[in-house]
Structure formats: structure tokens, C-alpha cells
């Protein structure tokens, strides 16, 4: 059997793959957080609960209406995104003039309430969610075996992340968004409905979380706790990448997923803490994060 640094290649590539999968979810979630933080200046602690809602709405569409995975992929982001827009209109919009802390407390409280409601309804044990038939099975890449669904998650996540980056950095719509992040009052005085743009942006960030939830459903179990477990790591990713940096959150998401996977191979004891160790080092050396700019 071939080995690299005394580790069988099978194990190495296997963990690398798991790292890439985790990285895909880190990237999708931290991207949504970055977009929301950029324009709304709110640290959206509800993000994990909204990711969980994505998985549950997909489960419900399947069990109650018989709609499959692909329908869920299409319908869940707008449904959960709409609940996000409602939250923004009814609650978050009252907080923009106050300190960051209020937004953080409100969204944290909301996350607890939403998780509690789902736990009450569905219990704590995970619910199964079957993989779409088109993506079952896998292929042998020569050096490793790649399950089709996992390959799909990595590719889809990359496409969505790069698409979002392109829209924000290279299009007219994105230039409104970037300008409103800097000086919303002036952008509005040019004739753009900034409050509506803020609502839609929050809805979009939440929709990204829900989409990640649908994609996660066949891999991880659908459970009320799934978002809370993940979101702590995602916040570390966001801090390392730099609050509000779009490209930073994508690159750090994938990068840290891989680092975590490799740690599992070479020093498994540290695999749960490595991201937080990196966070501490980055914060000490570059308080604004790797890709962030000091405000």
C-alpha cells in the first residue's frame, strides 16, 4: 500500500474529502454571514437555526408533500429566505441605529427559540433523509473512491460561492451593494431604495444557509441541534477570514475544512480544536482577520 509521510493514501484522501465537504458548508454559511454583516452590520446568530430550518423544510416537503431532493433544493431557499425577510422587517430593522450587541442578542435569542420549537415538535433524535437516486453510488478515481453525492456537494458549493462573489464584485447590482455597505445614506439619496435592498440581502443570506441545510440533509442527520453544532466553527471561520470579506469567507471556509481534515490524519487529538487555535493565532497577528480591513 502506498504511503505519504507514513500515512496510507486511502486514509489521507478520505480525510481530505471529508475536509472538503465540511469546508463546503463552512464556506456557504460564512459567505451568508459575511454578506449580512457587510450591509446590515448585524452578526446573524440565527444563521445556524436557519441552516437547520433548511434541512427540516426539505424533510417536511418530502414527507408531507412527497417532493424530492431537487424540488427541495429549488423551493427551500426562497421559503426560508422569506421567513428571514419577515424577521428583518419586523425586528432587525429596529436595531440598525443601536450597538452591534443588540443585533447579536436578538438573533441569538431567536436561534434558541427556533431550535426549541423544532426540538419540541421533532425530538432530539435525528431524522433520516434519503439521497437523490441520481447521485447514489460513487466512482473510483484511481487513487480513491468518491461518493457521487459528496462530489456534487463540493462542486455545487464552489459554483454558488463563486457565483455570489462574481455578482457582488463584478456586476452593477453588486456595486450598489458595496456602495450601500460604505455609505447607505448617500446611495439612497441617489434614488436607490436601500431599506428594500437590506431586506432582500438578509433574505439572500438566510436562503444561502437554508440551501446549505438542504445539501447537508442527506449527509448529516436532520436534527434540531445540527446548526448549533456547526455555527460555532463557522463563526471561527468568519473571524479568521475577516468580518464582511466575501472572498475571505469562501477561501477560509474551504481552507479550514481541509486543514481540519488533515489534522484528523496527522494528529487526530487536535482535530476538534485546530480551527480555534488558528483563530487565536490570526487574531493575535491580524485582528481584522486574514482578508479583513480594519475599520
Amino acid at each position, binding site marked *: 500500500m502506498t504511503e505519504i509521510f507514513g500515512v496510507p493514501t486511502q486514509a489521507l484522501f478520505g480525510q481530505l474529502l471529508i475536509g472538503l465537504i465540511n469546508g463546503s458548508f463552512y464556506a456557504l454559511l460564512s459567505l451568508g454571514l459575511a454578506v449580512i454583516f457587510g450591509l446590515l452590520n448585524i452578526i446573524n446568530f440565527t444563521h445556524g437555526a436557519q441552516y437547520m430550518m433548511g434541512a427540516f423544510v426539505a424533510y417536511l416537503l418530502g414527507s408531507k408533500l412527497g417532493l424530492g431532493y431537487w424540488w427541495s433544493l429549488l423551493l427551500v431557499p426562497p421559503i426560508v429566505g422569506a421567513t428571514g425577510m419577515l424577521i428583518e422587517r419586523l425586528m432587525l430593522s429596529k436595531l440598525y441605529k443601536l450597538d452591534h450587541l443588540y443585533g447579536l442578542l436578538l438573533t441569538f435569542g431567536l436561534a434558541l427559540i427556533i431550535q426549541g420549537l423544532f426540538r419540541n415538535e421533532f425530538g432530539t433524535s435525528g431524522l433520516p433523509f434519503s439521497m437523490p437516486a441520481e447521485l447514489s453510488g460513487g466512482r473510483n478515481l484511481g487513487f480513491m473512491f468518491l461518493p457521487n453525492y459528496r462530489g456534487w456537494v463540493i462542486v455545487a458549493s464552489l459554483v454558488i460561492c463563486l457565483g455570489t462573489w462574481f455578482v457582488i464584485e463584478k456586476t*452593477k447590482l453588486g*456595486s*450598489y451593494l*458595496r*456602495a450601500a*455597505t*460604505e*455609505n447607505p*445614506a*448617500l*446611495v*439612497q*439619496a*441617489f*434614488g*436607490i*431604495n*436601500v431599506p428594500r435592498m437590506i431586506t432582500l440581502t438578509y433574505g439572500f443570506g438566510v436562503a444561502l444557509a437554508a440551501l446549505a441545510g438542504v445539501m447537508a440533509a442527506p449527509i448529516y442527520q436532520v436534527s434540531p441541534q445540527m446548526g448549533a453544532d456547526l455555527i460555532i466553527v463557522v463563526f471561527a471561520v468568519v473571524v479568521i477570514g475577516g468580518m464582511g470579506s466575501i472572498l475571505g469567507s469562501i477561501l477560509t471556509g474551504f481552507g479550514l475544512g481541509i486543514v481540519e481534515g488533515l489534522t484528523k490524519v496527522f494528529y487526530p487529538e487536535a482535530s476538534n480544536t485546530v480551527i480555534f487555535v488558528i483563530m487565536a493565532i490570526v487574531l493575535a497577528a491580524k485582528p481584522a482577520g486574514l482578508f479583513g480591513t480594519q475599520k
Partner: protein
Amino acid sequence: MAEAFKSLLEVKDLNAWYGESHILHGVDFEVNDGEVVTLLGRNGAGKTTTLKSVMGMVERREGSIRFKGSETTKLTSNRIAGFGLAICPEERGIFSSLNVEENLLLPPEVAPGGLSLERIYELFPNLKERLKSQGTKLSGGEQQMLAIGRILRTGAKMLLLDEPTEGLAPVIVQQIGRTLTKLKAEGFTILLVEQNFRFAATVADRHYVMENGRVVDMIPNTQLEASMGKLHEYLGV
């Protein structure tokens, strides 16, 4: 049907607040179609607040601001922009995350008849050479040209300019003066906030003097020489 109105912009008994502080205490003035009018006054007299109130950028305002006969006091700034008003703020408001071209193309068209890009590059040739530069990497003068240039494209015919000459070299100030004169000839109406009344005298038709949140005097440009003594007292120069 819009009712008949005399002035393009009529401001009556305008009061405005920032939080708890009451800044404007009943401002009255008017601007006719095609005029260049300045607001003169010391720091803190309320000139910038008046300009922002007209644009709808001050949240709490009372009294009456009529543009083409329509009351705009209750409208948000994006609706007011739709009437054909555009602002060039004192801090210029160039966006650092946008390049020069994106900054220039940012304000959406609000009416037909804005200047073409070619015409804007003709007025400000420097901009054309720096299109891909980051907006805030331009010199102060170029940033000012960009801040004025981008609102000429939108079809807005009334421009609100807040101290466009502040901190700029004399040769740039002259260029901006010539540009304002050309814009007036093309039918733009301009409300200008200025500290530098020597510059104001070269471009304006009339001057309003502000003190403590009120308009205290109006001086036609033709009588500026005769009113020098009075003006020095107002401005404390």
C-alpha cells in the same frame, strides 16, 4: 395636474433636527429655474443641514420644501431623487470599494436628458484616464470631479453641491468654476454651499446668508461689491 408655481425650489419655515439638537430654526429661501444660488455663512450656521434637508437626508424635518410645486418634506431621499435632484456631499462620498468607472455609473438615471459619458469626460478629462483605479486613490481634485461628474449623468437638473472647492488647489478651483458656468449654460440649476465667497461671486446669481439656523439676508451678485462690509460682518472674515 401640477399647480402653477413660481420657483423651482421653495423652502419655507424649514426646521431640522439631528437627534435632540435643533439645527435649523425656520429657513426660508427659493431657487428659480436655471439659477446658481449660494448659501453662505460661518461654520455651524446650518448650510449643510439645509442642503441635506432638501435632499431628504435629515430624518426629522418640518416646514415646507416644494420642488416643482410638489411638497417633499414627508418623502424619503430615494423618492426625492426621482424628482430630479442630486447631491454632491461635502465629504465627496467616493466609494472606496468601487473603481472610478463604477463610482461614475453608480447613481441610477432618474430622468432622460442627462449628460453622456463623452460629455462628462470632456468636462473632466482626468477621469477618463483613471477609470480602473480605486475611487479613493484619486487626488482630492479628481475625487471632486468624480463626485460632480457622476450626478450629471442621471438626468437630474437640480444639483446640490456642498463646498466643492474645499481644500483644493487654486487651479482646480478655477476648473470647477468654469465647469459650473458651463453647466448653468446647459440649463442646470445649482444650489451651492460655500465658505469661499470670492469663488461664489464668480459663479452665482444670488447669495443667501445663513446665521444660527436661519437665512438672515439675500444679496444679488450684482450688489456683492456694495455689500462687502455687511458680508464681512456676517462671515467674520
